[in-house]
């Protein structure tokens, strides 16, 4: 991390009445980083984004952008731009005027505005769309216009609020790759909010996991995925199996919470396995390349993901499960 982070939050809280949307959040986002804020709805990730953009003022704490104190600075004085979840395109302007809005405010001459708008539209692969109205575009196209509008000024930090939330799966996958390559080309710090863990894992350099207004864990995707800091993170990022201390003690000899990735669980015939690990398949879903089993063991339920077609349980559904002790990730209690 560089000595001067692009965005740094120190002990930032934002309260709405009695609700603590953000509770003493500390974050440092490095320059040029693709940073994801991941969490369920109501976890404070969007509030955090809005505090960085300047739409919300922190109740307490300090926000710095490239070392400069941004607390109390209105959004229009921050070199930070936002792509909104609902795109927030101005319905009374055409695409080119939307994209060049910030240039119009800075009184850039008309011809120059048109040139730069077209250039930005080319960057998001919408050349020649300038004369259309936002209402004439599809969701994916509106998203690109919102993106072009936000990057036309080359902001120091680009904020994206659930940018892909409203797109269908295919489009979402395309846009993920495009956002990634756009970020590499521009070298801008991207901060994006998402509730989709796979999106965060695939796109981000680092992820901050939010829950109930707090940052629970910050780390690279692999780190967050493999070594979740708490049962909440394990469950939210990749729907890990959460094993309670009693169960872990019985199978691994250590009385601690542990997480276990479903793809690290093997499902076999119930031979002479540890009786704690014999159970019954309660549900089976075919996921294409893999099959997911829900297995009810004594007292707990586990999910296992195995290559499709690699195993078929007997009619009575009785199976044994197995995993390597090294697949267990021990962690502190629930949070």
């Amino acid at each position, binding site marked *: 991390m560089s000595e001067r982070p692009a965005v740094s939050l120190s002990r930032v809280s934002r309260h709405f009445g009695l609700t603590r949307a953000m509770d003493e959040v500390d974050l440092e986002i490095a320059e040029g980083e693709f940073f994801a804020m991941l969490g369920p709805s109501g976890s404070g990730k969007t509030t955090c984004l809005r505090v960085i953009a300047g*739409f919300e003022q922190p109740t307490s704490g300090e926000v710095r952008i490239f070392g400069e104190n941004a607390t109390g600075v209105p959004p*229009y004085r921050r070199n930070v731009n*936002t792509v909104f979840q609902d795109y*927030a395109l101005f319905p*009374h302007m055409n695409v080119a005027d939307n994209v060049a809005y910030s240039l119009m405010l800075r009184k850039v001459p008309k011809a120059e505005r048109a040139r730069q708008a077209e250039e930005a539209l080319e960057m998001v692969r919408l050349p020649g769309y300038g004369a259309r109205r936002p209402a004439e575009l599809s969701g994916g196209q509106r998203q690109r216009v919102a993106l072009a*509008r936000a990057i036309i*000024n080359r902001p120091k930090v680009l904020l994206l609020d659930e940018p892909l939330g409203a797109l269908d799966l295919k489009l979402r996958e395309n846009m993920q790759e495009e956002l990634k390559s756009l970020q590499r080309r521009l070298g801008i710090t991207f901060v994006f909010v998402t509730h989709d863990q796979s999106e965060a894992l695939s796109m981000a350099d680092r992820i901050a996991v939010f829950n109930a207004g707090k940052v629970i864990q910050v780390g690279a995707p692999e780190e967050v995925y493999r070594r979740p800091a708490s049962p909440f993170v394990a469950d939210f990022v990749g729907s890990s199996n959460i094993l309670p201390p009693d169960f872990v003690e019985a199978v691994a000899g250590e009385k601690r919470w542990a997480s276990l990735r479903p793809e690290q669980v093997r499902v076999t015939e119930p031979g002479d396995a540890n009786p704690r690990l014999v159970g019954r398949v309660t549900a089976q879903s075919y996921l294409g390349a893999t099959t997911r089993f829900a297995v009810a063991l004594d007292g707990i339920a586990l999910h296992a993901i195995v290559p499709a077609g690699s195993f078929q349980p007997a009619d009575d559904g009785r199976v044994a499960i197995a995993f390597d002790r090294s697949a267990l990730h021990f962690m502190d209690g629930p949070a």
Partner: protein
Amino acid sequence: MSVATEIIAPPPQSAAARLADGLWRRPGLVVALLLAPALLWLAVVYLGSLATLLRQSFFSLEEFSGLVVEDYTLSTYAELLQPSNFEIIKRTVLMAAAVSVASAIVGFPIAYVAARYARGAWKAAFYIAVMLPLWSSYLVKVYAWKLILAREGILTWTFGKLGLGFVLDGLLALPGVGGGSLSTSYIGTFLVFLYIWLPYMILPTQAALERVPGSLINASSDLGATPWATFRHVILPLAAPGIVAGSIFTFSLTLGDYIIPQVIGSGRYFIGQAVYVQQGTAGNIPLAAAFTVVPIVIMGVYLAVARKLGAFDAL
């Protein structure tokens, strides 16, 4: 629990249910039935009378006999352009314009607060506060204002107590709009018009602002717009259809009103009074009709200009 065993329920027995089924199969008929009462009213009663009125305006009055000559002529319209009649039109249009502009300026902040900040009980309080004046009789309000504005009224008294009597005197000394007291000046007429029509401006403006998502205002600010620039480039254009709708009310209601200028003001005629006098005491139906055509033409021109200026782009 009873379980329906048949896949398709048997055809209905009652007439009402059969009617419902029949209508379900003919959506066009439903639309026609929904429109019929309004169309009957609007097309026959309203547009019909309007056409008759228009026809009347092309007749003329025989000067000596005082009888209406049913020959088509433009002479009645020429009469409108005579200085005395044209003064009435000018006075009314200026008043209507002033009232519309003032109610837009006074109404906008109220509509804005109601649309963007008021929630729950506060919103209900807003609606009640705006509509409450509409629940009481128009005549009562106008006469109440006459008392408020009278030389012996509470307004003069308040200005006097505050040592601001000279402000009031200065206003009343203004040439053209002043007068002996507020209740006998154009300023008084203006104030009462403003008060009476203000709700008709606030409600459509508020409805238009209600439809502007907060994210648009955030986006504008995010892209570097100061609050004033956001107002000019985003909020105002998006509220324009509402403001224009409101001004149609304030403008046309002022153009047609004949009570307020009669009770409060300088005593000089407005279009409404001219129509009233011409068709009543003077018996000059053609001239009354021609006067009535004036607001219709003005509103048509006004809407065309508003459209040209892009006021409806955000609709």
